[in-house]
């Protein structure tokens, strides 16, 4: 099954470009002019998100390097152990919704320290692969169109993250 997904992923982009351009040519679209016209927007859209990226990445970086996470791990670890949640996984659970880069770093660290085929290694891999960076996506996506009131979006995103986190723990302890 893994190799099927891998092949699809490998061919998706070349296939998509091929199909779009071929089909559009048949339809008589001036593909080159059209592409360039669409691509124009890329610059303004990418530049527009800079302030939101700076605000978000700065806060996440200060939070992470200030040492809050190791503090939580130290003082709340016992509580989470009671719930059968290994304390070593806490930094990953906290960073996952905040930053893709930082959580990948933490996940890699766990895998390298405890081994990829250990319980912690498998759990970290599953968690990293099963949710996305909620904060980052909300800040950038809403920021790019000037939305200031997120309404309930953040609550829904974080709630789903917690559920996916618990589901990861459940399935990894069941399967392996």
């Amino acid at each position: 099954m893994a190799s099927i997904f891998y092949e699809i992923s490998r061919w998706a982009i070349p296939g998509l470009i091929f199909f779009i351009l071929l089909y559009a040519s048949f339809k008589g679209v001036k593909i080159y002019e059209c592409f360039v016209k669409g691509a124009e927007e890329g610059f303004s859209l990418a530049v527009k998100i800079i302030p939101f990226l700076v605000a978000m990445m700065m806060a996440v970086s200060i939070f992470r390097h200030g040492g809050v996470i190791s503090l939580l791990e130290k003082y709340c670890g016992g509580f989470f152990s009671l719930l059968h949640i290994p304390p070593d996984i806490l930094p990953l659970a906290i960073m996952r919704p905040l930053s893709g880069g930082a959580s990948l770093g933490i996940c890699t660290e766990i895998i390298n320290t405890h081994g990829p085929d250990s319980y912690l290694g498998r759990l970290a891999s599953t968690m990293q692969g099963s949710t996305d960076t909620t904060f980052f996506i909300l800040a950038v996506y809403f920021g790019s169109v000037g939305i200031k009131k997120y309404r309930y979006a953040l609550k829904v995103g974080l709630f789903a993250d917690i559920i996916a986190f618990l589901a990861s723990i459940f399935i990894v302890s069941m399967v392996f």
Partner: protein
Amino acid sequence: MINVIWMVMIISGIILAGIRGQPEIITQSAFEAAQAAVKYSIELIGIMSLWLGLMKVAEEAGMIKALAKLLRPFTRLIFPSLPQNHPVLGSILMNFSANLLGLGNAATPFGLKAMQELQEINKNKDEASEAMCTFLAMNTSSITLLPATIIGVRLAAGSANPTEIIGTSLFATTIGFTVALLADRIMRQLHR
């Protein structure tokens, strides 16, 4: 809510670094993060331009409209507030598919494009529309068939079976996705 979380992250980081007697860590990480943010968006310009260009070609050829029409039965359920066969459904689907295949750098351009199109039909330009909230619930919890990066990390760490976490990830991500859509639906009713 975002204001509070943002403040808590920064203030707690500074206080703790201060207690440890290493305030310079904050200075360094704040500056580095600001630079990294700009670097990320500069790199994004190229990829954004590429995908927005291709999207325009697909749109002009009528592919996006056709796709939106094809998916109407599903999208009517998930996005009841969107007008019939609106092209934004095409962008949303492309974003979803890119996430599904673990193609992160294709997902962002489609996602930002979708947000732009959603904003065009949003009545209150300041506030997230119902469709935006649903789209972001889908996006932040999106189902991943192939967590390619993490498989790479496992391979590099010498795992006996680097891909064995595909099944468990798929389970957790499907649960997360379902819960996100349900929670979004409930919140939508409550906030009316």
